[in-house]
């Protein structure tokens, strides 16, 4: 389940994603000359995933659960759910093809890899324009680096990342730049780890007033839409640019079709769903089983006004589950850890609470393509096995509640969680675990205190899910460098020499095949330690939408985490509104004449 998205966790995760490596990179390219013999690549022949039938026009209405505290995308309060709507309208230089995973050009037209293994050269598309009509040039990238390094933005993580990871951005001419990263990486990874979005230099005045001045300023962007109306506390409207520079560009054409996107603030999800059913919102994400099976019912569905769709995707799975803290002396015993894993009835959770829609997550890094070790299976629910293990570990007495003890010690742990969504699952697992004599006390903490509690490693067992990245990240989660220290992501405090060594090799490896082999080995060793008990995953996205919304024939892409995302540069904006159908639908809603009930299941990428 990918629901726990504590943004702080994300920030932290990113902050540990590489080694620092300082070198004055700009010395590399004396006089800002490009090295000779570069092989420029421009992959414009890959299959496109939008539909040629798409027509422009119409209004798309969504709900968001809270109004953003600022329109800045960096600095205090900017790390909120709304930010992605703004950032998705800043087109990256290149992106990864959502179906074939090859690199495709967006803001850049060409790119070339330097022989040092950590630098990529880009040619910026000369057509590219900011929303105010000013051309996008190399200076905007240089300025982006300056801004991200500036103290005035009050964003330490950005300051650090754009100094220690992205070492430099070099301008060769007005439309050619090089981005220098800290360490060599496989080619495709370079684009992801060492990327930078341009910022309109002519718009910003970087001084100590920056944060307050730009709180509610609408920053120029390069994407298809721009914020056009802000009703504070109520809604934010985006309007499609009339002459967007990239309308005819490969991979971006026939996309981003609706004229207007309205994001309406509806705090309560139940109320939001009622709005949707009344036709005041056009599409609604129905990932939660309760919504899909119980709430998405009624005349509007039966009469075919609202359609339902399930789309099976293939994306990196959030490492969600239980993290056992080895600092706890009872959990330090691997037999106890194994017994806990054997006492957790995830099958029941999946069958009953998740209605069989989800699957058991096999291991920490699942869905990372060839990097994932698919031979690993999680420990199955088996009470007899658990009881046997506990007896071997000397947990023989039982108290009046049936909980095991040894001397003065009681086999009792707190399961902390920071999201009420997990509560039914935690309660169900704890009830079952009692049978083997293990007491699991549900311990809910409000998200921020939960995060603090976990990152300071004060938990016994923590239930959470990490956000995903392009490649497995072992060092931050499992290396002893980060064990027994607050504010690091090794929340199990795993401290194992053999695993450390493998992780070191993995981090230094530049050969893809070697890294994959090492990833498999590390994953297996970690699974054997039973410090992480995987919970569940879903390999689909699903939604309900009014019948006037149209999707391409393939519906979405392999990488689509949502079907009706409006702006995302990889899989967003594929839908369009059929005005005639909308007109007919609204008319027949009055007369009560219905259409065919429709539920689509797309298993192309299952």
């Amino acid at each position, binding site marked *: 389940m990918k629901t726990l998205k504590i943004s702080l966790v994300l920030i932290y995760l990113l902050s540990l994603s590489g080694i620092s490596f300082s070198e004055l990179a700009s010395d590399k390219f004396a006089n800002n000359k490009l090295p000779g013999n570069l092989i420029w690549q421009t992959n414009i022949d890959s299959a496109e995933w939008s539909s040629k039938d798409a027509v422009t026009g119409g209004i798309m209405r969504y709900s968001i659960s809270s109004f953003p505290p600022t329109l800045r995308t960096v600095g205090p309060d900017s790390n909120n759910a709304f930010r992605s709507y703004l950032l998705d309208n800043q087109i990256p230089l290149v992106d990864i093809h959502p179906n074939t995973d090859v690199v495709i050009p967006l803001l850049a037209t060409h790119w070339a890899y330097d022989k040092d293994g950590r630098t990529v050269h880009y040619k910026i598309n000369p057509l590219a324009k900011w929303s105010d009509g000013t051309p996008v040039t190399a200076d905007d990238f240089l300025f982006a680096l300056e801004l991200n390094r500036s103290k005035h933005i009050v964003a330490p993580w950005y300051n650090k990342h754009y100094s220690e990871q992205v070492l430099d951005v070099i301008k060769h001419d007005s439309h050619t730049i090089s981005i220098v990263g800290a360490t060599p990486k496989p080619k495709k990874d370079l684009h992801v780890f060492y990327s930078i979005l341009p910022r309109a230099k002519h718009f910003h005045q970087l001084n100590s007033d920056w944060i307050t001045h730009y709180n509610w300023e609408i920053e120029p962007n390069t994407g298809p839409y721009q914020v056009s109306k802000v009703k504070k506390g109520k809604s934010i409207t985006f309007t499609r640019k009339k002459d967007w520079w990239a309308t005819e560009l490969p991979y971006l054409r026939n996309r981003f079709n609706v004229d207007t996107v309205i994001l309406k603030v509806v705090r309560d999800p*139940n109320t939001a769903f009622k709005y949707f059913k009344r036709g005041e919102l056009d599409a609604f994400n129905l990932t939660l089983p*309760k919504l899909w*099976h*119980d*709430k998405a019912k009624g005349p509007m569905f039966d009469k075919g006004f609202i359609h339902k769709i399930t789309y099976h995707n293939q994306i990196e799975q959030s490492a969600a589950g239980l993290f056992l803290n080895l600092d706890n002396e009872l959990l330090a015993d691997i037999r106890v850890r194994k017994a806990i894993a054997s006492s957790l009835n995830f099958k*029941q959770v999946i069958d*009953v*609470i998740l*209605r069989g829609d989800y699957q058991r997550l096999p291991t920490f890094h699942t869905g990372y393509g060839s990097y994932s070790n698919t031979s690993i299976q999680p420990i199955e629910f088996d*009470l*007899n096995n658990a*009881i046997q293990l506990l007896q071997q570990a000397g947990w023989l007495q*039982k*108290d*009046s*509640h*049936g909980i095991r003890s040894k001397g003065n010690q009681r086999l009792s742990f707190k399961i902390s969680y920071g999201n*009420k969504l997990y*509560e*039914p699952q*935690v*309660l*169900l697992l*704890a*009830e079952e675990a*009692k*049978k*083997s*004599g293990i007491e699991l006390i*549900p*311990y*809910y*903490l*409000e998200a*921020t*205190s939960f995060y603090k509690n976990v990152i300071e490693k004060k938990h016994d067992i923590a239930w959470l899910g990490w956000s995903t990245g392009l490649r497995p990240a072992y060092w931050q989660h499992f290396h002893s460098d980060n064990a027994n220290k607050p504010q690091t992501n090794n929340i199990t405090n795993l401290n194992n020499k053999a695993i450390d060594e493998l992780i070191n090799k993995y981090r230094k490896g530049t050969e893809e095949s070697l890294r994959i082999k090492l990833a498999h080995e590390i994953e297996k060793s970690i699974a054997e330690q039973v410090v992480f008990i995987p919970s569940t995953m879903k390999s689909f996205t699903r939604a309900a939408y009014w019948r006037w919304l149209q999707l391409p024939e393939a519906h979405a892409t392999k990488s689509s985490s949502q079907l009706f995302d409006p702006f995302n540069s990889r899989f967003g904006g594929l839908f369009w509104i059929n005005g005639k159908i909308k007109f007919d639908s609204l008319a027949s809603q009055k007369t009560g004449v219905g259409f065919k009930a429709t539920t689509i299941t797309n298993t192309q990428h299952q």
Partner: protein
Amino acid sequence: MSLDSTKPWQRFKSLKRGYYSLLLLLTLIAISLSAELIFNSKALVVYYNGDYHFPVFSDVKEGTDFGLDYQYETNYRQLKKTWLNDPENFVLLPLVPYNATETDLSHSYPPTAPNVNHQHYLGTDTIGRDILVRLVYGFRIAILFALTLLLVEYIVGVLVGSLMGFLGGRFDLLFQRLIEIWSNIPFLYIVMIMSSLITPGFWSLVMIMALFGWMNMTWYMRTASYRESSRDYIKAAKAMGASNFRIIYKHIIPNTVSTIVTFIPFSVAAGISALTALDFLSFGLPAPTPSWGELLKQGVDNLEYPWIIISVVTSLSIVLLLVTFIGEAIREAFDPKHEVYYE
């Protein structure tokens, strides 16, 4: 005014609505206090191989104790089914054979509608726990919470209030200002902040709420004892050398008891509502504590399963109505107008 305490009671008894409400409420409390005997997944009596077992009163009995193949707590409902045609062994289950935290997932996806055959008389909640059982255990917690809170608040409130009225002077002034400031601190924010830092338990919640709830009583007690302290019998007691505390305990409080008693039912109602409200907002007692507020929240979020919301709203209304009827009757019973005649 008469000091004869039997008279108000006689009058209270004569007020039928209040009197029967009290009896009903006391019955409900008695049922909830003995809930383990009526609402429990453990059997009352198991007769196995010539021996009697009383699982409700004993430690956990494992399946192997009754010839089953598992080493964890016996599922007595299952055992009863197994022994249905066994002439030698038998199981006697409580009236409702479920406890407040167990999830019954044997029928269909929770929540399941009320069903007499499954013995879920009010249905189950969103993770399959019996609603009736949770209501009963939740009521026990709510009423005990309200009574404990009342006790703490009244002890502090009555004491401080009496002292303010009796001592007067600087003490009175100081506490007046203190209470004015203290009552301006927004209580709900404090509870929200506290419960984001710690997971509140029964006692910590009582203490937090008492910290902000003791002030109400002080004003009434201050006025009452101020009035009393100017009377002749207090002066007489002073003249005889009685200590301040003796005067307060022996003279002032007994003479102001009617003020205190009339407030009790309303404080109980307030206590129950407060706990329910906090649980509803998930700032109350931690899961899986059975709670009316948590059920109410589930009910509101799941209006398509009406049995949840109907059960909890009905129970809440009945209990609050009973308490209010009792309160009205008490107020009438203690009304001095019955005794003072104006000429």
